[in-house]
């Protein structure tokens, strides 16, 4: 043993070594087994999980927003277009210091506080790898600034999108409407799948009414990205389906003429194709530029619009409710005849006022001293005699007036393809009981019989009424859109035509012709010489009540208290094709201010369509819409 500790013993050492080496080999084998177990666990047992993880890493689904359908007028003039616009967005994940980046970009583009506030809100809601828009609609100079500095602005990207554009601007703002950013309320209501990739939705007008058709179908792209999010290749692609284009009955030339004719006045013009109910013009002035709303209107500009007394955002044609005044007289004339309240030969003496039996109240005529004796229905319409209509209205009774009013479209939505149409009021006993909690008085009937009192109608309703007069009771719903895509919309007639004996029509329509033609016709001077035939009816809607024994004196009233001027007309008489209703707010008399506007529109219509409208607007004029593929590639 002593030797053992001091002398080397090769054999003993060799055996010791073999033992130790064998032990280490066992350890190696054990550790190799650990490695094998680990790799086996990852690659065989948990393969599916990791395969999914790897795919999630690389495969991203991108929504491809569809191009919104375009809107054309009847002649193929573009009313709503998509133009490429550039948006500056920031991907929070790709920058280390977001605040510094915002400051750097801010030096180049000078952001407004409102922009930054909106961005802050969005950044908190989105995932860090999603791009958050900061500024829309970059100008070329701004794009260039960003492009030059891009290398030192990691996380900043400029992407192209299609931005809605309204080439005719204010002229059709109330008809076409506008799109805007989807708000939170809409977000809850909308199907998130359909709106994947779209930020915009129709807010008003046709854009809202036809949202479903205009939107199109979203496309998808499965892309493979590398670790930095760069797209390496597209694995699979479902193209978006662009929204359907709309073609209108409306003629933008007539629209322009209507607006020009209204000039500085506040008012509305509605022109209908009597055959189809197609809307040829639908103007409301003043108007506004819808393009302001597309990318978000500034608070200042918005306040200017809402604060204006002229209410440019208010669509008078569709939502303005006015007493229709004397323009209802042809309808109530027919009502009195057809209901048998009076005969065609019925005449009265007009002393300038009307009194109900046992009532001292005098219902006055617009003409002091009255229209004289032997006033017939014809005279009463041509000269717009109020006393005659007080009389026959009272004789007919409110139930008859209500019934015929409804049949001519008063008191209910016309069913035009626009959102938020006002109903107007065609008063009745039930209505008064419900709305006012009072019983119906005979005096109420007297007021209604000249389109005053409780009765209210929109310019569109007045146009529908005159169209039904012109066609001798044919009922058609007013429509703006003739084609969705290449599909012709067939007008739906929900109610049967108005059955009234021809001789009554002859009398009333001849009287309307007399309004324009006769020496004593109220519109003769205003319309002047025309080389076609026109029938019409003037009207005046009181804005402020005139006390008993008080004279209406325009000079004493402020402009806003002046009467509204109304005029309804159709032409040509032999074969009516166009029906027009005009209102000029505070324009005093229908004859002087409203009638010339109607004439301008009818003149233009007959000039452009001397042979009438094409039965079916040509679909060939539909220009090809913008290329289908998305302009949303990363910039």
């Amino acid at each position: 043993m002593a030797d053992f500790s001091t002398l080397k013993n090769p054999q003993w050492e060799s055996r010791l070594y073999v033992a130790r080496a064998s032990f280490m080999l066992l350890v190696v084998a054990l550790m190799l087994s650990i490695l094998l177990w680990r790799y086996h666990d990852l690659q065989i047992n948990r393969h599916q999980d990791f395969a999914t993880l790897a795919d999630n890493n690389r495969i991203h689904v991108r929504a491809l927003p569809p191009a919104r359908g375009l809107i054309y007028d009847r002649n193929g003039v573009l009313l709503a277009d998509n133009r490429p616009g550039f948006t500056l967005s920031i991907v929070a994940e790709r920058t280390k210091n977001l605040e510094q980046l915002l400051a750097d970009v801010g030096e180049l583009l000078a952001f407004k506080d409102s922009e930054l506030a909106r961005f802050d809100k969005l950044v908190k809601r989105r995932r860090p790898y999603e791009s958050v828009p900061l500024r829309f609609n970059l100008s070329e100079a701004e794009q260039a600034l960003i492009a030059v500095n891009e290398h030192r602005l990691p996380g900043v990207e400029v992407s192209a999108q299609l931005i809605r554009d309204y080439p005719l601007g204010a002229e059709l703002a109330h008809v076409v409407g506008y799109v805007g950013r989807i708000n939170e309320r809409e977000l809850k209501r909308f199907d998130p799948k359909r709106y994947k990739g779209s930020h915009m939705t129709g807010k008003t007008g046709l854009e809202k009414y036809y949202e479903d058709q205009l939107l199109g179908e979203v496309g998808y792209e499965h892309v493979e990205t590398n670790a930095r999010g760069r797209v390496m290749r597209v694995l699979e692609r479902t193209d978006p389906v662009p929204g359907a284009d709309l073609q209108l009955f409306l003629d933008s030339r007539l629209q322009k003429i209507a607006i020009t004719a209204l000039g500085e006045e506040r008012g509305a013009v509605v022109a209908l194709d009597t055959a189809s109910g197609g809307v040829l013009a639908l103007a409301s002035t003043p108007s506004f530029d819808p393009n302001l709303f597309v990318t978000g209107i500034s608070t200042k500009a918005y306040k200017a619009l809402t604060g204006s007394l002229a209410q440019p955002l208010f669509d008078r044609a569709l939502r303005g409710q006015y007493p229709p005044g004397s323009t209802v007289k042809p309808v109530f004339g027919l009502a009195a005849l057809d209901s048998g309240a009076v005969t065609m030969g019925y005449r009265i003496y007009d002393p300038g006022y009307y009194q109900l039996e046992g009532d001292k109240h005098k219902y006055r005529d617009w003409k002091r001293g009255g229209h004289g004796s032997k006033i017939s229905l014809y005279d009463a319409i041509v000269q717009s005699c109020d006393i005659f209509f007080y009389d026959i209205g009272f004789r007919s009774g409110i139930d008859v007036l209500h019934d015929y009013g409804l049949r001519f479209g008063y008191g209910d939505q016309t069913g035009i393809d626009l959102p938020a149409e006002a109903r107007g009021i065609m008063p009745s006993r039930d209505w008064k009981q419900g709305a006012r909690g009072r019983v119906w008085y005979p005096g109420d009937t007297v007021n209604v019989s000249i389109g005053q009192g409780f009765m209210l109608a929109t310019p569109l309703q007045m146009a529908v009424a005159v169209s039904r007069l012109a066609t001798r009771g044919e009922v058609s719903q007013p429509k703006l859109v003739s084609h969705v895509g290449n599909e012709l919309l067939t007008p739906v007639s929900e109610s049967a035509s108005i059955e009234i004996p021809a001789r009554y029509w002859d009398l009333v329509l001849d009287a309307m012709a007399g309004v324009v033609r006769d020496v004593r016709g109220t519109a003769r001077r205003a319309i002047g010489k025309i080389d076609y035939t026109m029938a019409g009816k003037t009207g005046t809607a009181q804005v402020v009540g005139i006390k008993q024994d008080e004279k209406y004196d325009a000079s004493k009233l402020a402009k806003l208290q002046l009467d509204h001027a109304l005029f309804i007309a159709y032409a040509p008489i032999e074969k009516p094709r166009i029906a027009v209703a005009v209102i000029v707010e505070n324009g005093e008399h229908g004859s002087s201010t409203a009638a010339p506007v109607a004439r301008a529109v009818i003149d233009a219509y007959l000039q452009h369509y001397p042979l009438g409208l094409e039965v079916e607007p040509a679909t060939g004029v539909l220009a090809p819409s913008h290329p289908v593929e998305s302009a949303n590639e990363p910039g």
Partner: protein
Amino acid sequence: MSQGDFERSLKEHGSSVYGEHKSWLALRIDFPLLILLLVLMALGIFVLYSASGQNLNYVKRQGVFMGIGLVVMLTVAQFEPRFMQRWAILLYGGGIGLLIAVIFVGVGAKGAQRWLDLGFFRFQPSEVLKVGVPLMLSSYLGQRVLPPRFKHVFVALLLIVTPAILVGVQPDLGTALLIFAAGFFVLFLAGLGKSYLLGALFFVLGAAPLFWFYLLRDYQKTRILTLLDPQSDKLGAGWNIIQSTTAIGAGGSSGKGWMQGTQSQLDFLPESHTDFIIAVLSEEFGFSGVLCLLLVYALIILRGMLISINAQSMFSRLLAGSITLTFFVYIFVNMGMVSGILPVVGVPLPMVSYGGTSIVTLMLGFGMLMAVSREKKRMGEQL
């Protein structure tokens, strides 16, 4: 073992004509080891081409490194192990000197000071000690009576710990670990007593908290913590491990195919051509690929241990055994770290990861192994 027998007979036959014919067969070459290494290199090049993103530059350079490695190996293999014993003090002492130099004049990157700038290339002195330490220890203990007594154990520990600490403070934990392992293997193979082993175990357990609070830098602590819960820092320190385990797992049993790994080819995998290359192999060749690689590694280790057992002197045995086991440590640490069972330390996968230093150092070791394997023959001849 028929292969070994064949080798032996071949060499005996060769030796009978030794001195008369100077054919290449006269070179000292351990053919089984050489063939296994060539297979491993081929495999490595194959994987590297894909892992580098089909970068031929990397492949060419790696090929050059491997060529240099082979030359180094075959050159070293021609020396007598006894002769090498004389290098031990030189390599070891020189290495320590250079490590101290690094502290004062070294250059660094990423907060670690590891290199000496020699003008034409950067040199990492710690690599010298990967060979220097086992050589020195084998030389020291090989001359002592085994199992080593306390005095010798103490000296041996000093010889191990000094360079390990010098490298560890650079800080280069991976290399320090390898150096320590190489030294420890010599001690263990030399028959270190059980009481020392137990003592070492307790020492490690006791020192661990000190180590944690005083020696480890923050980033090293983070690496260990992320090992326990990679999801805690998904985009930071945990990213590497999440992506590498995903790549490995996504490979499945047979893999996605060469150059078809999405994790590797789309840059999700960090360091895919260096330390994390096993993840590329795992993703593209699956579990079967991993099995193949481990089989080659296992055969090399087996061959190495066989050489060491059959060696003629204690010095040769210890040296060969330590080199072989250190080779395994490379494999275990690398594959363990990439698959998420060990913390991330910078240890390459031997002969597969891109990098010249590691290849040349490894081949230097294999050269020594070959020298040892042939020594046996010569001794037998003398007897």
